[in-house]
């Protein structure tokens, strides 16, 4: 039983990396007023480039870094076009999703090509902390790869940044009232650029995590809607980092449960379990409808005149 619980938690944490990093990335840009719905596209493009780089260099870390850079590129495009031309953020986001989808398969097919056996990503080393990792409670949490530790760090850092530092407070203020922040002397455009790019970098890492760690190989459409589910998580978290993290873990658990039930269950067709995560996004958003708040300026362009 204990080993079952351990493997369940361990697997949930692996999936939570994807959900949490992505929804945190969306929350971070949303806090500065940019509603980034292009998460799915960023994940796909980063998954592809991350896999290609890690496969060719046989180094998983390089794969994560290149995924992160791809995310930064998308974040830059999004914030540049929005800030310079005031294009509607949703139209922009959706165009970027489609761009990322096309780019991911194109890059893979042009660089790796069609192979008889699917190429495998190099193994990501598991990091253990001496003594503590063997304790029963920590076993599942501290027998993980480097990105999971990065996730723990980011969780702590995001909380500290937004609630304990002046810059974090200012960035939150941009999301609520860009004009007021501007009057106080905050460079709104620059903060929006930075927040979107950093947020997209996190999404890029989670995209690269999919083929390198979770599946071990690249398949088309590998993110399978998780980028959009993360947008749902960010909304139901009311753009609060701590709730986004909670939501990330919740959906990771739902996905793992759905996956396990699908193997066990005989009577109910497996397709209905595969629907479960998507339906639960909608149900959870319905349940939390009353508590959902948006930063006042999210999704709206800001210009000084």
């Amino acid at each position, binding site marked *: 039983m204990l080993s079952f619980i351990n493997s369940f938690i361990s697997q949930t944490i692996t999936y939570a990396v994807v959900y949490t990093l992505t929804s945190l990335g969306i929350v971070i840009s949303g806090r500065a007023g940019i509603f980034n*719905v292009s998460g799915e596209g960023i994940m796909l493009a980063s998954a592809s480039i991350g896999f290609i780089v890690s496969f060719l260099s046989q180094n998983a870390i390089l794969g994560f870094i290149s995924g992160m850079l791809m995310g930064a590129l998308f974040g830059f495009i999004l914030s540049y*076009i929005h800030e310079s*031309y*005031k*294009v*509607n953020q*949703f*139209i*922009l986001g*959706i*165009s*970027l999703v*489609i*761009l990322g*989808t*096309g*780019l991911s*398969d*194109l890059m893979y*097919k*042009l660089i790796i090509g069609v192979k008889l056996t699917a190429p495998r990503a190099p193994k990501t080393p598991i990091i253990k902390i001496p003594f503590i990792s063997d304790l029963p409670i920590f076993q599942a949490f501290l027998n993980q790869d480097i990105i999971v530790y990065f996730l723990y760090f980011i969780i702590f850092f995001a909380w500290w940044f937004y609630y304990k530092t002046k810059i974090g407070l200012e960035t939150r203020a941009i999301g609520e009232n860009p004009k007021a922040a501007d009057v106080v002397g905050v460079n709104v455009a620059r903060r929006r650029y930075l927040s979107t790019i950093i947020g997209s970098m996190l999404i890029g890492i989670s995209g690269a995590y999919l083929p390198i760690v979770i599946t071990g190989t690249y398949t088309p459409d590998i993110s*399978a*809607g998780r980028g*959009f*589910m993360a*947008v*749902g998580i960010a*909304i139901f978290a009311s753009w609060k980092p701590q709730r986004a993290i909670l939501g990330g873990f919740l959906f990771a658990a739902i996905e793992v449960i759905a996956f396990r039930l699908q193997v066990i269950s005989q009577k109910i*067709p497996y*397709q*209905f379990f*595969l*629907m479960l995560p*998507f*339906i639960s*996004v*909608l149900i959870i*958003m*319905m349940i939390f*409808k009353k508590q*959902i708040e948006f930063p006042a300026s999210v999704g709206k362009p800001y210009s000084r005149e």
Partner: protein
Amino acid sequence: MKNKDLFRVIIIYFLSIFFAFIVISIIAILFRYDVIKVLKTLLTTSFKTSFGFQETIKKTIPLIFTTYAFTIPFMIKFFNIGGWGQMLFGGTVTAVVGLTLPKIGINLPSFVMIPLLIITGILAGGFFALIAGFLVAKFDINPIISTIMLNFVAVQFLNFIATNPIYRDPYEGHPITIPLPKSGTLGFISGIPYSIIFAIISIIFVFYLIKKTKLGYEITAIGYNLDSAQKYGINFQKTILLTFFISGALAGLGGTFEVINIHKKLIEGFAQTSGAQYGIFGVLTSLIVAGNPIGAPVAAFLMSVLLVGADALQRTMQIPVEMVFLSQALIVLFIVTFRERFLRRR
């Protein structure tokens, strides 16, 4: 539209397409393909042979339906990315009805069966979109999220039906059902599917809806200014529901024709072409014409020309179809950017 604006629009489209083709050319040069041949194949395949032209029309028809599925909610500032889910659901339910009736011993003649299946597709697609409409009207859930979540539900539902022992074709490895009864399928007239008639009817219907009906007037008013539209007594929630139903019905209809006219059975991935779903291409097409219902069919045809060109590139030069998909996304990105730059209103 003033003359000056028209000139600007032409410039915008020209520049966007030009830049996108430059990107294609760069990719082609980087991977050592013959650039001239790539561009020539891409643009002329549809017009060289009658087969190419028939293929173009075959792709244009579903594209018109999915383009409208995105366009109509877009006019009231909602994003229905669920065109492909609604198409899949409409097609799947149509196939279920078409396959179940003969199984339980009801053999209807063609002139009853075809209208029945068409109505099934309309209702199924409309119902599926109505879920998203209901979620936004009652729970304020952004349709971008809800429609995409429902897309994945539809994908699984299609898979469930196509692998179901009652319907599936036991001799196929891929999830494919047994063929529909002959009375439930439409044919071709010199290579052009009969469903083109319904595509034209739907174009006229959308024109009529937008220009002549009360609902169309309300949609325009809400798109122009929601607050004042509500002040004048327009029921926003009702308009949302109706809009979503109509858009889903059109997408579902598109799915029905893919099933009863093109494939004549239910195939997993029946709503797919050149590397992506028709629903995704519909979003792109609609964004190219800025949600303009009049420009949509033209854009859908031009989009299909590129898609047929993309297939030819893959066949003859082994260039992945995604290159064209990518260039279409780039065209859209350029167009929305330039449009804001040169045509900023207010």
